């Protein structure tokens, strides 16, 4: 094959070859030349070759010039004594096969353009092959989909070595088609199972890729929404699994369960938990199967436990899940870091939900109130502004706990009877204690916190304080609010005159710092 210099020449040469192959079967050997270019080092050339292959095999598929049915190995084909046409078709099918394999390899090409093009071409083949199946239908109306080819695509997407999030975001648009989504789910669960079995520890990159792909799958809400098919079908049959939302759900569930049953890195766990409650749980056929993952995550501790709460809550609330020691574990989650983590609002929203039942025992609520107020001793003001009304709401809901702020006629104690180290709220003796912490917080430097803590000085008012606006409060908002607040009178001034930066004698700064 003579080569013209430059990409234009290559394109022209490939075009000529393509014409020749499509024109007559006698020139079929030119396919080898095209396939050879696919192996090229040059990015431009590869792209040209991919385009040429796409056109060539696309045309052949449409014409039906590829062998249909179980493909025998190449040697037997050549040796066999079938008709020339049949031989040609089989041979061409083999070329098609090798082309697809090469394209699959190209999904790992360093250049993104090549990857993108390869993906597009493969998906085109999937579409054409679906329309003109390369296997014989076993019965009338048999649903045929190029599963091996598609599985290869998915495998290429879920790389072990490289983060393919860009390519996956390209692939996302195919996922809008119902059949592609269905087969993606199947293929993905296969791939995940294979990879996880092969490796003792699932590689992080693979996890990332898999999570990106899995989280891109979103099921429709209603059966009637299943109508868009990537592979064009003349008519849809009710017997096909792909047309039923139930089957989709089952595949979805299999995929996620298969993914989540492995030991995942914490970052992935976090991501999964964040989307758990609104994009995974509602689509599962049996949401309660998620309990394994959720309990595992809940036992990890820290922020992950907080996130797992949400999913657990949905299971308990909507799916009748019995979860032993739920409150005990929730109690265990309360540690000083709870006020400093990113998911504070979410956690307290859920905690408010969990503790909203009026049937909870008083000792439990008292333990929570005491624990929270103990933790409030280390909290920043924006968190205090939220947690103080929270505690007061608890006391309002459970009048039996009001002894925490009002215990007339009892003797002075030597020490706080509450045991902060006790893990079981029942044994923490919180009901015998009082909320002295809130009394201390009445001396807090921020006026609003001080006011919020002073609420317990009076008999608590009956209506609960709405927490919703306080949950998302940030320090910056508190700061802005303080700045904007207008005082009634003029600004009060210091009357002791300044004598310099470290001028005052009783100043701490002056004691510990010097200017030089």
């Amino acid at each position, binding site marked *: 094959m003579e080569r013209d210099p430059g990409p234009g020449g290559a394109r022209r040469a490939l075009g000529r070859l393509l014409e020749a192959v499509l024109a007559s079967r006698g020139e079929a050997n030119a396919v080898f030349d095209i396939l050879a270019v696919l192996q090229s080092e040059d990015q431009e050339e590869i792209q040209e070759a991919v385009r040429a292959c796409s056109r060539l095999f696309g045309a052949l598929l449409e014409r039906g010039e590829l062998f249909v049915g179980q493909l025998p190995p190449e040697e037997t084909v050549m040796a066999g004594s079938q008709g020339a046409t049949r031989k040609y078709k089989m041979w061409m099918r083999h070329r098609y096969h090798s082309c697809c394999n090469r394209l699959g390899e190209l999904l790992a090409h360093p250049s993104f353009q090549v990857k993108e093009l390869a993906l597009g071409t493969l998906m085109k083949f999937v579409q054409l092959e679906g329309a003109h199946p390369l296997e014989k239908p076993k019965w009338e109306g048999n649903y045929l989909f190029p599963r091996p080819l598609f599985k290869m695509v998915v495998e290429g997407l879920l790389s072990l070595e490289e983060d393919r999030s860009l390519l996956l975001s390209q692939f996302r648009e195919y996922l809008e088609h119902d059949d592609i989504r269905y087969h993606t789910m199947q293929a993905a669960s296969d791939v995940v199972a294979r990879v996880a079995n092969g490796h003792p520890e699932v590689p992080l990159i693979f996890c990332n890729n898999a999570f990106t792909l899995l989280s891109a799958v979103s099921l429709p809400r209603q059966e009637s929404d299943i109508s868009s098919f990537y592979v064009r079908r003349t008519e849809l049959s009710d017997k096909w699994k792909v047309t039923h939302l139930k089957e989709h759900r089952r595949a979805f569930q299999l995929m996620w369960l298969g993914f989540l049953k492995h030991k995942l890195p914490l970052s992935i766990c976090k991501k999964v938990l964040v989307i758990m409650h609104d994009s995974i749980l509602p689509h599962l056929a049996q949401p309660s199967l998620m309990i394994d993952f959720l309990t595992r995550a809940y036992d990890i501790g820290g922020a992950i436990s907080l996130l797992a709460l949400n999913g657990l809550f949905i299971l308990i609330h909507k799916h009748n899940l019995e979860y032993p020691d739920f409150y005990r574990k929730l109690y265990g989650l309360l540690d000083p870091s709870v006020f400093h983590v990113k998911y504070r609002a979410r956690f307290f929203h859920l905690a408010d939900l969990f503790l909203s039942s009026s049937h909870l025992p008083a000792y439990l609520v008292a333990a929570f109130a005491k624990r929270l107020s103990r933790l409030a001793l280390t909290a*920043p003001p924006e968190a205090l502004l939220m947690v103080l009304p929270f505690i007061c709401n608890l006391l309002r809901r459970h009048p039996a706990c009001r002894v925490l702020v009002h215990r007339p006629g009892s003797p*002075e104690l030597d020490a706080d009877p509450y045991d902060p180290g006790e893990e079981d709220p029942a044994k923490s003796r919180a009901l015998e204690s009082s909320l002295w912490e809130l009394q201390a917080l009445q001396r807090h*430097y921020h006026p609003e916190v001080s006011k919020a803590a002073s609420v317990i000085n009076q008999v608590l008012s009956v209506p609960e304080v709405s927490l919703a606006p306080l949950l998302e409060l940030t320090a910056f908002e508190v700061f802005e609010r303080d700045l904007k607040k207008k005082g009634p009178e003029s600004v009060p001034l*210091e009357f002791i005159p300044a004598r310099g930066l470290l001028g005052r004698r009783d100043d701490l700064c002056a004691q510990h710092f010097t200017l030089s």
Partner: protein
Amino acid sequence: MGKARSAGARRKAPGIPVGARGGPARPNPNPFEVKINRQKFQVLGRKTRHDVGLPGVSRARAIQKRTQTLLKEYKERDKSNVFTDKRFGEYNSNISPEEKMMKRFALEQQRQHEKKSIYNLNEDEELTHYGQSLADIEKHNDIVDSDCDADEPGTLSAELTAAHFGGGGGLLHKKTSQQEGEEGEKPKSRKALIEELIAKSKQEKRERQAQREDALELTEKLDQDWKEIQTLLAHKTPKSENRDKKEKPKPDAYDMMVRELGFEMKAQPSNRMKTEEELAKEEQERLRSLEAERLRRMLGKDDENSRRPGHVSADDLSDGFILGEDDRRLLSYKDGKMNVEEEQSREASDGESEEEEGEDSSEEDPEESDDPDSHSDLESDEESEEGSGTPEKERRHAPGKRLTSDGQKAREAARTELPYTFVAPESFEELKSLLSGKSIEEQLLVVERIQKCNHPSLAVGNKAKLEQRGKCQGRSEQAENHPLTFVPSKATAGPGGGRHGALTSQKLFGFLLEYVGDLATNDPPDLRMIDKLVVQLYNLCQMFPESASDSIKFVLRDAMHEMEGMIETKGRAAFPGLDVLIYLKIAGMLFPTSDFWHPVVTPALVCMSQLLTKCPVRCLQDVVKGLFVCCVFLDYVSLSQRFIPELINFLLGILYIATPNKQNQGYTLVHPFRAFGKNSELLLVSDEEDMATWQRKSLSLHWASGLKAQTKTEANHTRLSCLAVCLALVKRCVLMYGVLPSFHDITRPLRALLTEHLADCSHPRELQELCQSILTEMENQKHHCQPLICEKSKPVPLKLFTPRLVKVLEFGRKQGSSKEEQERKRLIHKHKREFKGAIREIRKDNQFLARMQLSEIMERDVERKRKVKQLFNSLATQEGEWKALKRKKFKK
């Protein structure tokens, strides 16, 4: 009969409206037909409409009506014949009766013409009037006329009398009946009558008015005459009157003189010079009042009490007695008992240690340190006298700075070089260019002069205001520094310029602050200059509190904004530069930090809290900055003794990074610190030698602005110094928060860490002693575990049924809703009533019909019976006759 009478008598009692209503319509109703709905109570203003009813009469009327309408319909139910009234225009109200008649007549003529008299050529038609032949009428025409004329005047007079003496209705009745009786005369309508009456009364009115006017005119004329005569009689009175009215009093030379003298500018009697003791006493008084004010603000209770007047109950006797006076204050404990003294903070701080100085001492010590100030003032006065002849004298020095003689010399030198007046800078760059390249002394002088040239008092020139301001400016401005000394410079600045000056020196604060920030970010920071400028800032702040607070808020917001941006992008923020720390420190010096709420101080506190919670400590510099923030924070709350959770956390973290990492027990680190990681042993010093050579000394602020340790030993020494500062702060916290109820819970983590600290004995002895003393302090604090008790809420007063007073503007209307709402309600009510009425009517109709049908059937039955009987009769007679005939035959 007696019973009937008593019933009648009973009716009479409430029956005034009965008479009024039923009287004219039916003067003498049968008492047995009257039904009375007796009311239990008379309600003023309620209209009673259905108190009396005549059921029999109304029933009869209803039946009559039904027989006329319903019964007719019923009877004609199967008949399809229709009666059509073809009289022309009978039901057309648009046509007047005359026209109608004319048309009818024309039509009739036409018809007659068509039918009968086609061939009638002589058209003699009989003309009629009211159906009578005109020819007939013409014959006795005059008789009718005379009749009318004779009657007319008589009736009119009767009418008038009747109208004036009441009984109009009766009269009208009579009148109409009378008129009806007269045939041929057109009856006068009621309307016409009334119109006549009105016309008459109007005429009378007009006459009366004319009469009055005449009288008025006459009296006026009389007055005029009287006046004329009066001038003749008494000459004086009218004259003075006139003078007052018309002529202005002539300015008397004497008066003018007196007034001029009175308004003349002159030296006012000034207060006598006060003695030292008096001055001191006054000062103390002033400080005491300021302190009281500060305490009031600290407790933060003022606004609730002063702003809202208490609720006044309806039963209040307004005798000033208030139940349960509201004298709440923050709860505090002392020695395990509730602290009820007024100034608990003072006592607590007094009692705790000698290290802390309470308010009392702080009240006094400025007094002591004032003396050198006033001396320096005197000195400077002397100096300025030496260099007299300049229009603007240096009256005031930066208070509180003891100038060394070197400094004074430099200053003197600077004074000779620098120009005396400066235009106030309009922008920060201008100020910077003014100040750049000059020595500290020169810069200070420039700033001072800018401030003086543009002093706001120059414009106002108002003594009272000046005094007030002079008072504001603090003690440094003493009595000899009388504000009026500024007056001579008035000529230079001018009244217009003063206003301008005030504005620019307001801005000056912002520029100076910015300049301070600039100086702080320089490398190395010019801390000495900042130190001096703080005094200027303080003075400016006293002059313009509003703009000063605005500028400080502005820089704080800037800093917070930057941090927020960093947190949003990176999830954490770095400690800001030294400038922000200096700003925070300055804010604490300019404004009272002990206020419960303060427009500047509260945001500054939040800002510091952010610094301590959001900025991870990653190097020694961060530690120094953090500790400085802690110091500032504690200074802020030194008087109010408020609790700062973040500070405890931060100190815990600092202590933690000074110990070797361990599996911690008994404490948890929070956000900016991590138990394990890169910087978790930042302050750990393991070099024995460095520890031995370490001397405790104050940290330099230069550390905070990127000073790098030259040697490892230096770095280690700094680490140890940081640790020492941290421990000192912990001790301070322990002393300060000892009174808090859950003190031991607050300090438990600190305690755990400190025991750990002690456990490893590698630290210098001084630090170990410090640790030990902190621990013993902690031990000494008592547990305050008095169970909480809610304050007794005021008992909810019994509900007193004091009447609710509603202003009734219109009677008979439903109150308390808008017009539309009322209209809607009215319509709904009306609909309901109409609906009910319709149902009742329909029911009655049906009953009536049924009754009619029944009577019809009965009638028919009776008829049939009668006929049957008749038939039987006739048959019987026939039979009888036949039998008789038969018998006769037999007999024959």
